[in-house]
């Protein structure tokens, strides 16, 4: 059982704090929603968990280890980040083969994940021609390639149509039911209530709430009013948006 533990995580860019003393856990077998307004430090936190951004203080552990120390990180963790890009001239299947080769995953698995995300027909097309929704699916395919126990997703519903969102929800529920740990950063609250078990709410880089979704509202309206109340006052400290 691999869980994500974030302990006292802080990141400052220059004088501005993006994340301040954040502590929470995402347990295995559940979908944890990581909620907060734009610029509240969600993406920075995900990047610190993944070893892309170095924390100023604090640690983020996956399965008890920091990402960099995992012997085969991709075998444990899959991630779809907003800024994860694709070379526009590379074919979808080639994009996945590059990752498969580096991770010693057999090539047949590329076809399996393309099939799983509904891109089997687009395998030979260059990614530059893809819609935003198709890119999201390809990013998810790349994350699933290594069959990881832990999944981190940043705004995965972006660009998906209603059918795509329903498909994503079913997929995440299915993956959690298999005992995987899933952390989904989002600000689309209506979607969250149907997908997540636990919520972590941040604002201005600080924790505002962590607990079962039931505790703050089962319906979209209840969650929204709780969310707005919790994130209303960003405090006196200045907070920066995540630098792009």
């Amino acid at each position: 059982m691999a869980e994500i533990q974030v302990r006292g995580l802080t990141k400052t860019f220059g004088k501005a704090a993006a994340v301040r003393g954040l502590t929470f856990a995402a347990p295995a077998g559940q979908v944890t929603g990581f909620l907060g307004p734009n610029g509240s430090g969600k993406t920075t936190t995900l990047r610190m968990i993944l070893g892309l951004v170095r924390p100023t203080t604090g640690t983020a552990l996956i399965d008890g280890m920091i990402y960099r120390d995992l012997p085969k990180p991709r075998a444990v963790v899959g991630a779809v980040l907003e800024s994860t890009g694709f070379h526009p001239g590379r074919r979808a299947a080639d994009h996945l083969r590059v990752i498969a080769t580096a991770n010693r995953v057999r090539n047949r698995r590329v076809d399996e994940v393309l099939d799983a995300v509904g891109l089997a027909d687009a395998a030979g097309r260059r990614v530059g021609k893809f819609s935003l929704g198709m890119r999201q699916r390809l990013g998810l395919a790349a994350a699933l390639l290594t069959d990881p126990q832990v999944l981190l997703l940043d705004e995965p519903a972006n660009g998906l149509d209603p059918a795509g969102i329903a498909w994503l929800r079913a997929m995440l529920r299915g993956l959690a039911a298999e005992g995987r740990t899933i952390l989904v950063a989002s600000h689309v609250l209506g979607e969250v209530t149907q997908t997540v078990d636990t919520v972590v709410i941040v604002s201005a880089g600080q924790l505002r709430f962590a607990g079962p979704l039931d505790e703050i509202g089962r319906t979209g309206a209840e969650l929204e009013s709780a969310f707005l109340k919790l994130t209303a006052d960003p405090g006196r400290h200045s907070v920066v948006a995540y630098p792009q």
Partner: protein
Amino acid sequence: MLSLIRSEFRKVSSVRGPWLLLAAGPLIVLAGIAGLVQSGANLQDPATQSKALGHAGLAAIFALVFGILAVAGEYRHGTITDTYLTTPKRGSVAAAKLTVYALIGAAAGLICSGTALAMASAFWAARGASFHLSAADDWRTLGGAVAANIGLAAIGVALGALVRNVVGAVALALAWVAVIEGIIGQLIGSGLARWLPFYASEALDNANITGTQLLPQWGGGLVLLAYAAIFAGLAIVTTLSRDVT
């Protein structure tokens, strides 16, 4: 490490840009030799023959730009995130890229040398002049061109990792080659200028284009190797602690 190297090869081979860029090398060699013959140079003079073959080294500028795409290109398209998720030990990524780009640089250098040899022989034959490839000097020119392609590809990889912006790194590299190094060379005098990277690669090419005082060929090769090592070291050290946003 081997799977990482294979993955880097796959990255290069699955897009068209690098191949179009490297294809420009042999075309420049072809055009350069044609120009030399058209200009009415004395084809019987061994120096003309050597100058013709020296065009293979000029094409190394494309290897430099090709190398820049290795890391800066990944930043441009955002694929660097995926690369570091697979291999959080970033020094290994740099080592794999340096290996792959040096190997492809070598292949590009060999192709340019082969093109130079074939084109020069053909032009010489067409003009009824005899082309002697007996001189050890000519082989050194062709070998130097391969080495220069390897060295500049490696410097390109390191430069792209330091600057992380394709346009910025390419502009800097080309401005350095075309203008900046020449100006610095004049300021410090040719005794010191021959230690600058592009003068060193010119010495390695065994083709004196700018007509200045150069290091011996082996010296040029060592100096270029030292520049590649320094740039690569700087690139790795800065890459290790940098946030990838």
